[in-house]
């Protein structure tokens, strides 16, 4: 039986049971827990102080996270959910699955932000990223972009959180003029991708002049690749923010550990990991400051952010406007 050793080899690849310790399960998105994300370092740092086993369960992205949570309902093994953004928190709060986090203390966000249910751990500004050598004079606003022949690739707001962010960005900046802006942008958009990865991959392959990403994206290229050819274009309207938050579940199997984790999330040990793993700004700037490379990034003069409720009620009409303008 030659298949027997093969079958045995396959079975041993299944994960082993962990030692007997209280388990804190944190539901998050995929890129947080991946080898290159903050997850592994956060796990080591928290387990050093909690006498517990921190286990991340990961799903695709923020929107998927919310869908998963709604599927699991009160039966979820998770005590903490980490990775929603403010475009989704109204919907998340409406599920009734989140308990007040009870954490005091502010944060270093550029706009005032406080929510009884959701605690921010990092944030960033959406921006269009370009290659300085290929595009010496990038557009300075959406109107400038619409009037140019610069080609961009964006994400679909129906399947990706950055895509939704762009939708809210244009809405927050232009209000009732948003449909007009989208119609003018239509000939600049070479395509719309399902997620961030496809769009960024296409930009890196030279298909587009600019890609919707974050002001912090160039920091990855500087710090990890020693490549300073990428930059984010500052837009005169201001830049919409993505604030990433975590919350504690009402039915948390480990409520005390959940509290401890949320408190830990605001600490230096957690926050210092964020910039070079999640490539976002930490919610609390570390005492030692941000890593080298972040000083080269643009700092938008105006930060745009809708409240959770505004974002929730703006989404549907903004999506319809977007579909109408781009389907023509």
């Amino acid at each position, binding site marked *: 039986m030659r298949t027997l050793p093969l079958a045995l080899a396959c079975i041993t690849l299944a994960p082993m049971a962990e030692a007997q310790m209280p388990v804190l399960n944190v539901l998050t998105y995929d890129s947080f827990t991946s080898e290159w994300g903050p997850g592994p370092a956060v796990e080591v740092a928290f387990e050093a102080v909690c006498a517990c086993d921190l286990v991340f369960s990961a799903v695709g992205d923020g929107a998927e996270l919310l869908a998963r949570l709604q599927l699991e309902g009160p039966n979820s093994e998770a005590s903490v959910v980490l990775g929603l953004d403010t475009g989704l928190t109204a919907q998340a709060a409406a599920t009734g699955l989140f308990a007040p986090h009870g954490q005091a203390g502010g944060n270093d966000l550029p706009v005032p932000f406080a929510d009884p249910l959701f605690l921010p751990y990092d944030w960033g500004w959406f921006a269009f990223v370009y290659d300085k050598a290929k595009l010496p004079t990038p557009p300075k606003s959406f109107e400038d972009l619409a009037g140019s022949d610069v080609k961009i690739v964006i994400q679909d707001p129906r*399947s990706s959180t950055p895509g939704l962010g762009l939708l809210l960005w244009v809405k927050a900046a232009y209000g009732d003029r948003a449909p007009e802006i989208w119609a003018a942008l239509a000939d600049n958009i070479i*395509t719309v*991708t399902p997620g961030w990865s496809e769009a960024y991959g296409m930009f890196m392959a030279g298909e587009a002049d600019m890609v919707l990403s974050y002001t912090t994206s160039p920091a990855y290229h500087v710090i990890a690749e020693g490549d300073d050819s990428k930059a984010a274009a500052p837009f005169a309207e201001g830049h919409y923010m993505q604030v990433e938050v975590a919350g504690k579940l009402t039915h948390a199997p480990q409520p005390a550990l959940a509290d401890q984790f949320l408190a830990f999330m605001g600490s230096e040990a957690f926050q210092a990991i964020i910039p070079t793993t999640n490539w976002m700004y930490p919610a609390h700037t570390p005492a030692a400051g941000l890593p080298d490379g972040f000083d080269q990034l643009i700092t938008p003069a105006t930060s745009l952010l809708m409240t959770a409720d505004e974002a929730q009620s703006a989404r549907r009409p903004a999506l319809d406007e977007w579909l109408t303008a781009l389907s023509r």
Partner: protein
Amino acid sequence: MADRALTLSAAGLAAAIFLLLLAPLGALGLSFQGFTLSAAELSALRFTLLQAGLSALISVVLAVPVARALARRRFFGRGVLISTLGAPFILPVIVAVLGLLAVFGRAGWVNGVLAQFGLPVIPIYGLQGVVLAHVFFNMPLAVRMVLHGWEAIPAERFRLAAGLGFTPADISRHIERPMLRAVLPGTALVIFVICLTSFAVALTLGGGPRATTVELAIYQALRFEFDLPSAARLALLQFALCALAYALATRISLPASFGAGQGRAGGPPAPKGWRGPFDAAAITLAAVFIALPLLAVALAGLPGLFSLPSLVWSAAARSLCVALASTAISMVAALVLALAAARGRGWPALAATLPLAASSLVLGTGLFILLQPYIRPASLALPVTVAINAALSLPFAFRILAPEARSLYADYHRLSASLGLTAWGRARWVVLPRLARPLGFAAGLVAALSMGDLGVIALFAGEAEATLPLLVQRLMGAYRIEAAASAALLLVMLSFALFWAFDQWGRRYAAT
């Protein structure tokens, strides 16, 4: 006795497949009240049908001259080329899209050459891009399926034709066209239904929300609206379209009846005259069309291939295990259903076609809802992935086996019955040798598809159980686009190696 056992096991399998496909719809709360489609859903439906129909039609029309040329010409590298035809189909979607863009994109090779001559850029984004990508994926598959049809024509037919002084046109009319009539509708059906559920390719190359497919509407309903009944309704719509296409293909398709041969090898005669250069052109164009994007994928991935992080290897091993397990299940099921279908019944074929139209997202979500109260989803990641990969790849295996199982039954059923062969004896002496070629090809395709599929694992996978496709996605999400390209190349090479090994086994076994 053997017949009854076969029918019973096929019926059991078909019931299991219907249950696996329909139970998730129930779990999502499918209801028939107010079964109307919104304007957006209607336009998604229109675009879906248009792109799937065009993709299927063009793939099949282009496949015929290529398959004919491959069937009647012998040249250096023919075997390699035939094996490579399986490669586009098994590429992970995002990798294939980047490969196609490297060739046909705005900054691609084709437009680079055009620019050298001062010619305008040919835009890829739009319906043409979607169809181009689908033809790239599926035309080679169609070539393989049609080529099997040619290879299954008994050599005696061609010798008889030669003895009667048939011209190539006569051969085409009396021998080849009946075979095409039997094979093409099924081939077109498979491609149509595959393209029906396309989502990432359609959106990315379609150039914007005009290119919205039903599958994207499902995605939106599940992810952003959390409107489960609506997702279930759209998933049912996909099944209905698949069943309709199936009914249509069955009406058009006419089984070829050549009578049995002695199983001698030897394809159709190679005609001289203008057909020589025509065949050479068909083969060259097809080879270049397939090879260029593959080359782009290889060039992107090669530099980083040897510096991949070590966890890539455990993910690769896990993917291999999933693929082999899915292949074993899928092949047994496909063989049983194909042999049952050969006895002239319709339901085994429908059961083996319907999974094609399944939205893996709906399937995964439904199973999640059903299983979650009882078992930890993360502990089920790999078993569920194996089961769903087996179900989703079953249609391909079935479609490849079915035509030859049918002629096997027509040609040898009475003989084996009169010899009183047992079920085992039939399998050993009749089925296995006669079906080795399609079995090998089908197993290779199923194994490679199961390596690449990602639809479901992402929904269940915990921290420790990443498969290689999931890892490619994670690398891309972490800005590691080069490493992702390398991991994707590794995935393609492993998939292709699996495919090649099974396919070679089949071709060898059939030749002896």
